[in-house]
């Protein structure tokens, strides 16, 4: 009895240790193998991590155990799919978890699996420590010329962008290193190969001898303007490839047809309604809008002539537009008719098309001319003759009027030629009537004594710097 008690006393700590147990579960056989003081994990490669079978932490006692420590939680060798302590493990129950091994380099890695639990009834503390050892084995590796390493199924190897149908050779190359004892083969292919579809190259497999390193030049020929995917299969491991195809840029638009400002033949004459037209060098391919402006630079010191305007809106600017297919610039209002005014000078047209940025200009010069008369009448009244002369002088400088009245026999009536200096009167008129340009209406009343019916006609001569305008004989009627 004494011996048994001593034995029991000696075994108490052992019994406490035995309250928690770690086993390795074989799901296939549905069996558990106790884990001793050490456990090997692996094998694994840099790109091929290892995950252990299910590990079970068993509470083989009756009392619940509160697990307060479980590790390591991080590192090359670390727990996987585990509960965060503290957590209870009821009596006769288990808590499963895994151990993963993710080597970062060739070599051996060590860690300690630690479990601490406290009996919820007896407050007995239980500790388990298992030495974990993992060994990384050699495997083929893939790096690019920028130093980036790739793992199968990991980051996608981006080959770059290429125009549809154009083979593209990325500036970076891949390096295949085969540290294993046997040759490996790399094969590049599209994810979904189709005839005439996108190509990832090289199209022939590349073999890397045991212990050798080889450079691999990828190529990419997209068939569609889209992101395309491929694979590089190395020793059965699949690396993801991707590249972007883009559409061929649309052909550059044809240059905007060149407009030409054409002025009608009468555009260089005062007192005319002339036309400007704007044919295009070719039919327009697209819409354009803009303005056509006219500017007037009077000759010498002459004033502006406000009647040099576009008829359509009585201004010096009209809106224009071009529609696809048009062979001439269109006016948004009117037909391009403008008044040439009644003042000598130069009219300049400037076209600005806003969309194409095309401009064009043309000018016409209206030279100084003789006085021109639009309406000349000589009407007899009771004892006078009323002479009316309407016309224009584009020099604004009429200087002399001369009249000769004739009787019914064709003889000049005394005093014959009658002259009058009108320079001051016209200068004053033009100054006070700037709206008129060079237009005037002169009316003169000539008192007559004697038989007015004998006054048959009158000849008027109008002088300006360009010469003399003669009305010929105006009948008095």
């Amino acid at each position, binding site marked *: 009895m004494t011996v048994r008690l001593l034995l029991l006393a000696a075994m108490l700590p052992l019994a406490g240790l035995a309250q928690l147990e770690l086993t390795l579960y074989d799901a296939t056989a549905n069996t558990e193998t106790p884990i001793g003081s050490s456990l090997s994990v692996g094998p694994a490669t840099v790109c091929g991590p290892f995950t252990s079978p299910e590990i079970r932490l068993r509470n083989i006692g009756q009392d619940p155990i509160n697990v307060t420590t479980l590790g390591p939680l991080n590192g090359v060798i670390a727990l996987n799919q585990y509960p965060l302590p503290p957590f209870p493990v009821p009596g006769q129950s288990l808590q499963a978890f895994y151990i993963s091994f993710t080597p970062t380099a060739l070599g051996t890695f060590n860690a300690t699996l630690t479990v601490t639990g406290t009996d919820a009834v007896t407050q007995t503390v239980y500790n388990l420590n298992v030495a974990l050892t993992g060994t990384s084995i050699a495997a083929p590796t893939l790096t690019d010329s920028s130093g980036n390493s790739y793992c199968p199924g990991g980051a996608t190897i981006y080959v770059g962008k290429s125009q549809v149908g154009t083979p593209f050779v990325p500036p970076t190359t891949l390096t295949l290193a085969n540290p294993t004892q046997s040759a490996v083969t790399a094969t590049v292919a599209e994810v979904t190969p189709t005839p005439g579809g996108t190509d990832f190259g090289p199209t022939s497999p590349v073999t890397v001898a045991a212990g050798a390193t080889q450079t691999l030049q990828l190529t990419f020929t997209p068939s569609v303007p889209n992101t395309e995917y491929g694979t590089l299969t190395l020793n059965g491991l699949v690396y993801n490839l991707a590249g972007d195809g883009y559409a061929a840029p649309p052909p550059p638009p044809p240059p905007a047809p060149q407009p030409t400002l054409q002025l009608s033949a009468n555009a260089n004459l005062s*007192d005319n*309604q002339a036309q400007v037209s704007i044919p295009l060098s070719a039919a327009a391919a697209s819409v354009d809008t803009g303005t056509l402006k006219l500017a007037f630079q009077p000759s010498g010191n002459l004033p502006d002539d406000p*009647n040099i305007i576009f008829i*359509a809106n009585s201004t010096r600017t009209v809106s224009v537009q071009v529609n696809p297919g048009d062979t001439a610039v269109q006016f948004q209002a*009117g037909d391009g008719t403008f008044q040439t005014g009644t003042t000598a000078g130069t009219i300049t047209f400037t076209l600005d098309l806003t969309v194409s940025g095309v401009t064009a200009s043309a000018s016409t010069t209206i030279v100084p001319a003789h006085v021109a008369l*639009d309406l000349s009448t000589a009407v007899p009244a009771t004892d006078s003759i009323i002479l009316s002369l*309407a016309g224009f002088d584009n020099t604004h400088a009429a200087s002399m009027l001369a009249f000769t009245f004739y009787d019914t026999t064709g003889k000049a009536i005394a005093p014959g030629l009658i002259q009058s*200096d009108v320079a001051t009167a016209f200068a004053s008129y033009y100054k006070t009537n700037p709206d008129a340009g060079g237009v005037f209406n002169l009316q*003169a009343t000539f008192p007559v004594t004697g038989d007015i019916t004998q006054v048959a006609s009158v000849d008027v001569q109008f002088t300006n710097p360009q010469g003399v305008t003669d009305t010929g004989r105006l009948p008095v009627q």
Partner: protein
Amino acid sequence: MATVLFAGAFAAAQSGRAQSGLTPPQIGFLRDSVQNVRPLLGISGNFWLGDAVAANVVSAASSGNASMLKTKDSLCVLNALGHPVGSAWTATGTALFAFTTAGAPALAWLPDSGELLRWNGTGFKPTPASAADLDGAVVSLAAPDSSSAAFAVQRDGQLWRVDISLLDGGVLFAANLAGAAAPALLFDDGTLLYAGKAALVLRGPQGQERTIAFTGSAVEFTPMGQDWILVENGQPPTYLGLRLSTGRLFELPEVAQ
């Protein structure tokens, strides 16, 4: 033997022996696209519009010496300067006008009420003319003399001239204006202006015709000055000036926007 007492137009003017003046030539008055009546100034080929002398005008005509216009419910007569010299309240609607040969106001026809009014120098007076006697839509009105009115009337697609006595309203004369159609303008001497095929046609009192090339679509003819007719062309209309003596058409400036 006559003697012309003239030593020089302007010198004479200064001495009072002769009268003379320089002014911008005024052709007449017209109703613009925004219903204002404005003087039309200038000469053939170089026009400008003066300041408006009346607004909200539905019809207007000018002989150059005088103008008549119709607002919604009134008639007004303007002198050569565009100053009002008389007016009258009338029925609503448009109006057609006629001037004497000398260019004085003569008649106004109010189609909505079928009234023919006569200007007596101070006001408009009713006449016995009856719309029923016209038996058609009045297209134009003329004043051939002081005792009658001449109408161009559209009857069943044909244009007729119907003269009415201003004394008793009786029909003095009615004749089919064969070949002519509205729009048309009847002159006091019997001349008719109408739109023919690709031309404006001036048919004289004896039937002789003069054509003026015209490819537009005339809507209305209105006197706007001595020797000048306003041609409203197309819709919305553009405005053309027809100089009768030369038979030339000119584009008239639009009101500045």
